[in-house]
């Protein structure tokens, strides 16, 4: 199990690194897809089947394609003339290190606060469904509202302007 974990982590980190280091933006998007796939395998390794397959379906099947379309339909598909690294590379690195420190501290704190979670609970799809419409119905409805607003917004932005006809 441990060897597989290191392998999948290497793939995920490699994908994420190449997503910011490559020159061609579409290559970056495809490297990001590899990172998403690595995350999905990590979920599957933790026996979270629903989360893993939903990750593949949503991130690789929809978000990656969205990112790629956005790159192609704007001018991001041209290779950059100058260097890939921006002028603010160092401060960006400092900010990323800060975020990583905060997240790492939060994860380690939670491991200390909940010591009885050593046994991974198995959440079947049915339990997730029951929880979604039972205890977490308000977040579900809010997300649905958000999605509706986003869809209507997208349609309005892309609508054929009917002026001067």
């Amino acid at each position, binding site marked *: 199990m441990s060897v597989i974990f290191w392998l999948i982590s290497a793939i995920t980190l490699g994908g994420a690194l190449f997503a910011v280091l490559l020159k*061609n933006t*579409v*290559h970056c998007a*495809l490297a990001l*897809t590899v990172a998403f796939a690595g995350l999905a395998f990590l979920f599957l390794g933790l026996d979270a*089947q*629903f989360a893993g*397959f*939903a990750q*593949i*379906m949503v991130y*690789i*099947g*929809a978000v*990656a*394609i969205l990112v*790629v*379309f956005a790159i*192609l339909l704007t001018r991001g598909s041209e290779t950059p003339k100058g260097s890939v690294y921006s002028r603010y590379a160092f401060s960006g690195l400092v900010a990323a290190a800060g975020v990583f420190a905060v997240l790492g501290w939060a994860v380690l704190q939670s491991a200390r606060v909940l010591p009885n979670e050593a046994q991974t609970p198995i959440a*079947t*799809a*049915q339990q997730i469904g029951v929880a979604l419409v039972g205890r977490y119905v308000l977040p579900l409805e809010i997300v649905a509202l958000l999605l509706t607003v986003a869809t209507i917004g997208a349609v309005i932005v892309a609508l*054929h302007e009917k002026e001067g006809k």
Partner: protein
Amino acid sequence: MFQTFDQIFILLRDWVLGFLPVGLRPGAGVVLGVVAIVCVFPALFALTVLLERKGLGRMQNRPGPNRVGPFGLLQPIADAIKSLTKEDIVPTTANGFIHFLAPLVLVVAVFMGFAVLPMGRNMVLVDMDCALLFYFAMGASSELAVFMAGWSSRNKYSLLGAMRAVAQMISYEVILLLSGLAVVMITGSLSLTRIVEAQNQYTGIFPHWNIFTPWGLAGFLMYAIAATAETNRSPFDLPEGESELVAGYHTEYSGFKFALFFLGEYLAMFSISGLGSTLFLGGWSAPFSFLQWVPSWIWFFSKLMLSIFVFIWMRGTLPRLRQDQLMNFAWKFVLPFTLYNLMVTALWRFLGEGWQRWVVCTVLVVAGYVLLGRVSMRREHFGPRSYRYAE
């Protein structure tokens, strides 16, 4: 004795595994299953390619291939030899790495889908609780391969074909998921083996297949439309329309890579037909209760080949849909009808057993179909075209 025939592949596998030490048996069992799938479905692909060309030929009043063997039976072998010995041309400015990877990603994603189909009693490669979700996840991965193929070819027509194909596949994937969701709602499980077992019951001689219910029939029709569009099959094959885009996203592929794309497309057709027969047509269960002596895998493959025949039939009969007609159809008719069907399915469950739910749900489905068709076609005014140019 019929039990033996039904389980003959399982017994064969257990006999082979008996020669191995106990520790290796689970792994070797899986490997044997994978080898079986990798041998059977490409063989079926070869047969289907021949059937399609002969079938289309007959529908178009011509004989089809008949030179290579008796009735053209050796034509697939000739095609395989041709595609293996052709020169593999890669454009100089093409993105070599991604150009190479695209057919591989497609074929791998499509083969993964076969792992969860129950091809007979006890004949699933992997029996997962979230089998349906896994299948749709693999279908989503194959869309990325199509895009990779079109973009890496450095060809405007390929890119255009790839974007059209991806837009079409995304639109119809939602419909595929929602029509499958009605089945999941009634069965109460995402596991395909449980869905088939729930349909394997008989009242009198008639089976409890999902297609014989009003919501099941509507769901099956929407699923069939979505399946035809997902696999870029006529009448939805504008992305690879031979008269519009040369060959769409696989223009720049020659030789074996093209054969891999072809294989991927037909295997996707098989696996989506297999899923359709599992969800709606009862998987491996027999159509009448007195026919249960026939082995279950024969029923599964018969239903698969029947679906393939219907695909070929549609290809030879219907004209191609234009891209905007295709998208309009998906978002304005099929998707609302699928959502409505979901509500009718919920009503079916809540009304409980009895003849009332049959009448109510049938009336609702037919009324919904007619009303939605009328309402969505109301604004179709066929006047002079208006053009909008990029600024």
